[in-house]
């Protein structure tokens, strides 16, 4: 930690690098975008763009990572070439492995693939809850939405995942 208690990006890379990369990978769904997202997060940390409040360092990193991810996906969505369907309840196409993946033998790659195809807001809520283990209240603060919205996004995200994998 630096004198002000703010972790340096070197400390984050050294002590929380695997955690940070995992969050980025679960959100983006591929290694290239995950690496770019991690670099953006560390750049924000290095430039002091994110206020650090002493507490859970991984919670702080989760917030920066998730919001950086959502900001970028919204920016992409505004570009005509990357327009996504607006209906959040749109049905996911079947996973490539869905027909062979039973409930008992669903592989991490299948789950990750289904996760990647969730609408971003649902994906972020599910990742924050089930990958990172944040409470609904914390997720609401991170995403700046009411707890009721968090509950809805998590539930719909899980329901879509289940549908995509069976």
């Amino acid at each position, binding site marked *: 930690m630096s004198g002000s208690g703010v972790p340096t*990006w*070197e400390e984050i*890379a*050294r002590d929380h*690098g*695997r*955690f940070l*990369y*995992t969050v980025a*990978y*679960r959100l*983006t769904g591929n*290694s*290239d*975008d*995950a*690496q*770019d*997202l*991690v*670099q*953006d997060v*560390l*750049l924000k940390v*290095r430039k002091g763009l994110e206020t650090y409040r002493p507490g859970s360092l991984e919670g702080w990193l989760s917030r920066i990572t998730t919001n*950086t*991810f959502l900001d*970028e996906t919204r*920016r*992409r969505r505004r570009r005509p070439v990357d327009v996504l369907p607006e209906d959040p309840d749109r049905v996911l196409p079947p996973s490539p492995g869905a027909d062979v993946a039973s*409930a008992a033998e*669903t592989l*991490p790659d299948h*789950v*990750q693939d289904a*996760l990647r195809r969730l609408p971003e807001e649902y994906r972020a809520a*599910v*990742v924050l*809850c*089930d*990958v990172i283990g944040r*409470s*609904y209240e914390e997720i609401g603060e991170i995403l700046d939405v009411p707890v*009721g919205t968090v*509950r*809805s996004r*998590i*539930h*719909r995200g*899980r*329901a879509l*995942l*289940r549908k995509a*994998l069976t």
Partner: protein
Amino acid sequence: MSSRAAGSDFGASAHLGDALSALLDGELPPPMERGARAHLAGCPECVQELAAVDQARRWVRALPLVEPPFGFYERMLLERAQPTAGAFGARSTLGRRAGLAALGAAAAAVTVLGVGSPSQAPVSPAVPRLIEAHATSASVGADLLSKLAPAGVPVSFGR
């Protein structure tokens, strides 16, 4: 999936909907949790939906930590945290890879230079070029090492 939200009192005509995931996560206030459990006792539809979202929840929670690519953070550390602003989504994959490759090459150069004395002036022409030139002009022979020796170890006979 029903999105009919549940209040603290789950009536016979309503389904639990979003409250099912909150129930699994222990995020329902006690009165609502009691109401939800009472509702489940008489609603096969909600029991089925509960099992479905519980399965998805367990799948995601079972996902392992992901190792970053070998040397990913080390390259950034060598770069002294100078990643291009807006890297995520703003740069092409090819561009980022080229950047990291350049960083890797720079890191290798730093490592090599670090072995020698910092006071040594750069040699010009570079040793590899001398070796290459010597190998080209040397007589034909099978002993590559002896052909290269004069270029690597200059020897002076007499003054």
